[in-house]
């Protein structure tokens, strides 16, 4: 087997040094009967050619986004990732390194983490960022739990604009801890409802901008109301690229800003791995989940970086840790940092602007289709539209014509009573022809 260097002669010689007659002697502690004598009933080893063929055949049963006119967002976005990014993250020294527990020989990973944290803090207009979480949804759940720790309160209020999967992920985690989740009804814009829900027993109000319907919201009123009640404002997001064009939660006084970073540096990958961004006000840093890199010096006074504040973490604090999380999203985080370095402020703003312009073109094209009403008034690159027929049927019909129209709200949340709402987005990847093809197909489907 090509991945196993030992030869039978090696094995025999090594058993001799150990003083064992057979390999089974080394498994002597396994209860009798539990040590398998036969192979499990699965195919035997195959060479690279056969395995490649098998995986390729599976891949070819799918329709890749790039082979369609693609307008699907809803928490994951199709953007261009420069070739440089994938080359660098495949370097052995990044790909096959472990968590930087020995900082003297892990400065590459650590400095990149420090740069990532600095970039995230700048992008989100926050004081401190951690070294990343699994994805946006788990970051949002961690934010809810952190808010409960900080405020010592138990009620978490979710705006009806938060991605339903984020709400469900947080609900699963929070209810296990005995926290109460109040999820407001799905709404394209519910600023007033959120403000009304705030009371002195609320730990956090969680809002999303741009929200799941694409609506961009000025969060300052909600932030003030939360502040007045001693609750934290958590601003979450699914499209981090938006902050090249719109103000992030940090600009509105959010205590925690967290969400999905996939848009920068990372492919769609059918949902994972992605990279969760998580930033907080400095005063909450010791309640923050996840690992974090910090600056220090070595014995010669040279600048270096280490993982720090680790006494919050599970390997030291065990059941009193701020989270059970043990990893970050290393390579995805690195990809994010590389792509953000390539963009810089100039490229980021330009890319964000391009996305917005594509979305304007899409919104205008769809608005011209009879039976379509654009619901989202202020948007970045995603909008919700009401369709004269159930949205799921439209998505299915258009897929047959090579147009991935978006996601039906009924798929994200069947209980929302929004069967006629379709969520659709445009990015720099969409051409004018794509948009024309979409409008045409939609017109036919609604005719």
């Amino acid at each position, binding site marked *: 087997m090509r991945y196993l260097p030992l030869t039978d002669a090696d094995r025999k010689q090594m058993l001799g040094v150990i003083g064992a007659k057979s390999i089974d002697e080394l498994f002597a502690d396994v209860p009798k009967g539990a040590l398998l004598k036969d192979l499990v009933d699965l195919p035997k080893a195959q060479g690279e050619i056969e395995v490649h063929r098998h995986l390729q055949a599976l891949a070819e049963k799918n329709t890749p986004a790039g082979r369609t006119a693609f307008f699907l967002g809803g928490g994951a976005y199709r953007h261009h990732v420069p070739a440089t990014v994938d080359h660098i993250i495949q370097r052995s020294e990044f790909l096959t390194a472990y968590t930087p527990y020995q900082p003297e020989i892990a400065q590459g990973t650590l400095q990149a983490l420090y740069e990532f944290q600095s970039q995230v803090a700048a992008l989100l207009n926050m004081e401190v960022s951690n070294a990343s979480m699994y994805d946006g949804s788990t970051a949002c759940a961690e934010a809810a739990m952190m808010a409960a720790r900080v405020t010592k309160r138990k009620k978490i209020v979710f705006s009806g604009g938060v991605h339903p999967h984020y709400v469900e992920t947080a609900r699963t985690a929070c209810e296990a801890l005995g926290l109460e989740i109040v999820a407001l009804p799905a709404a394209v814009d519910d600023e007033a409802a959120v403000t009304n829900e705030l009371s002195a027993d609320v730990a956090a109000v969680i809002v999303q901008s741009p929200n799941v319907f694409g609506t961009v919201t000025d969060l300052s009123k909600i932030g003030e109301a939360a502040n007045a009640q001693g609750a934290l404002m958590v601003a979450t997001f699914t499209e981090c690229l938006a902050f090249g064009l719109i103000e992030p939660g940090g600009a509105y006084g959010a205590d925690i800003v967290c969400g999905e970073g996939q848009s920068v540096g990372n492919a769609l990958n059918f949902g994972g791995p992605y990279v969760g961004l998580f930033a907080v006000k400095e005063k909450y840093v*010791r309640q923050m989940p996840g690992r974090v890199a910090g600056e220090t010096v070595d014995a010669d006074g040279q600048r270096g970086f280490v993982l*720090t504040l*680790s*006494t919050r973490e599970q390997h*030291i*604090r065990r059941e*009193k840790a701020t989270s059970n999380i043990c990893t970050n999203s290393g390579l995805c985080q690195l990809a994010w940092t590389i792509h953000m370095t390539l963009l810089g402020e100039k490229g980021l703003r330009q890319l964000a602007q391009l996305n917005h312009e594509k979305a304007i073109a899409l919104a205008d094209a769809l608005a011209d289709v009879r039976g379509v009403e654009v619901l989202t008034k202020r948007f970045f690159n995603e909008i919700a539209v009401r369709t004269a027929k159930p949205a799921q049927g439209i998505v299915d019909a258009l897929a047959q014509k090579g147009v991935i129209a978006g996601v039906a709200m009924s798929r994200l949340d069947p209980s929302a009573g929004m069967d006629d709402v379709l969520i659709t987005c445009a990015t720099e990847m969409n051409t004018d022809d794509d948009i024309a093809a979409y409008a045409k197909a939609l017109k036919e489907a609604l005719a």
Partner: protein
Amino acid sequence: MTMRYTKDHEWVRLDGDVATVGITAYAAEQLGDVVYAELPAVGKSFNQGDDMAVVESAKTASDVYAPISGEVVEANAEITGENWQIINEAPQAGGWFVKLKAADKGQIDALMDEAAYADYVKGL
């Protein structure tokens, strides 16, 4: 009033009704350089043995338990002012953690005296 000690390496010294509490020199040495400590707010009450404070070095964190029951009347401003070094430099003097209004002074008598604590540490 002399110091008394717990098996969890806290010390306590009674002065009238008020008990000053800290961690022992042995504990401070085992912990290494303190990088952070979290003290309870004034007015908070504890039962003997409750988690009361946390003290951390770069690689470990230890809970500090209330050696006796009582209400916090003062937290050491040196520590809340982030002068962590004082815990290493003078753990049983300027590096005290809190002052408690003792609920039951009798609890102190049951703790180890200096000789008993020294024997206890030797056995670890």
